[in-house]
């Protein structure tokens, strides 16, 4: 299970990386925005994407749309971990095809639940 973590703040990437490690996912890579993440996804055989929304360069929602528009990536599970908390934005992300949405600040428990739920669904398919 290879996971890409995309966030413009290195501390947040580190927090997510540590939480994923505690959940047993040690194979992770990092990117600081959509522009650098997309080529990594296209060439890196990732199984899961965790992304922030608000980033310089390409935002998380644009990255999500780019992933869904890419023939080889469109089934990649995407979890959004973001401070964006407007109802319209959550609906927008859902319509763009997000698999889970965690608002910051979050707890280790919330992140764990969402990730497990996404994997259950992916495996059920």
């Amino acid at each position, binding site marked *: 299970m290879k996971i890409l973590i995309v966030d413009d703040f*290195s501390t947040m990437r580190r927090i997510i990386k540590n939480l994923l490690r505690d959940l047993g996912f040690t194979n992770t890579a990092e990117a600081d925005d959509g522009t650098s993440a997309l080529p990594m996804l296209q060439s890196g055989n990732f199984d899961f994407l965790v992304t922030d929304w608000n980033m310089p360069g390409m935002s998380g929602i644009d990255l999500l749309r780019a992933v869904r528009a890419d023939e080889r990536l469109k089934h990649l599970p995407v979890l959004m971990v973001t401070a964006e908390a407007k109802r319209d934005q959550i609906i927008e992300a859902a319509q763009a095809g997000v698999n889970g949405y965690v608002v910051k600040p979050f707890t280790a428990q919330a992140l764990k639940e969402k990730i497990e739920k996404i994997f259950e669904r992916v495996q059920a398919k």
Partner: protein
Amino acid sequence: MALSKDPGQATAQEFEHSLKDNAKQLVDYLEKGQFGEAILVIQAINQARDRGLYHEVGLLTRALHNSIVNFQIDTTHALEDDADTTRISDASDRLDYVVTLTDKAANRTMDLVDSSAPVVANIGKEAAALRVDWDRLQRREMAAGEFRDLYKRIGEFLQKTETSTADVSGQLNEIVLAQDYQDLTGQVIKRVITLVHDVEESLLNLVRMAGQVDRLAGIEHKKVTPEAKKVSSRGEGPQIHADKKEDVVSGQDEVDDLLSSLGF
């Protein structure tokens, strides 16, 4: 700030006063047919109006300038042992400094947790292993040779626990110390808030004065309706007072409710 509450008001009154006097004079000259003098009076009225406005614009510009200059406070004493200390002299540098300091503190804290976690995990693991043998000893399932081994291991474990917990305590203290950024960043942010407040006040004065200018000059503006804000794909960042806004969720539970209402 060296500003009256409403600088435009005083000028306006002064101007209206001189306008009244001058108007009487003007009518007087016109009735007497002294058109040359009448035109001079009109010029005087114009000059008085311009002078008042320039004066107010000058005052406000100076106040704005002062607000910005006063903001350059010295924080070097707080950073003495930092080699790359420079005088931080503007708001965005100051806020960059906040970002750097908080980033450093977050990483320092996580480093300390990362180095403490395996120490604690090891103590736990060794204690668990010892307890298995300890239980066997209590059930009298242990041979004398094994007991001697256990005896030695317990001694070693106690000693190791003593030093390990001292290490972890030290690291916990350092985690607390790493939170000292809050004091420094708090001070910087408060300064920036003061600057923003001063600039806002000066801008308000400017707007108020522009209103006076319009009134004196008899200019009318079309009402401008602000464009509806649209959500950009870039995002808006954290929401302040989320619990008081209708269109914002105030936590993960509300996100989950919203998503499940959408069939997630």
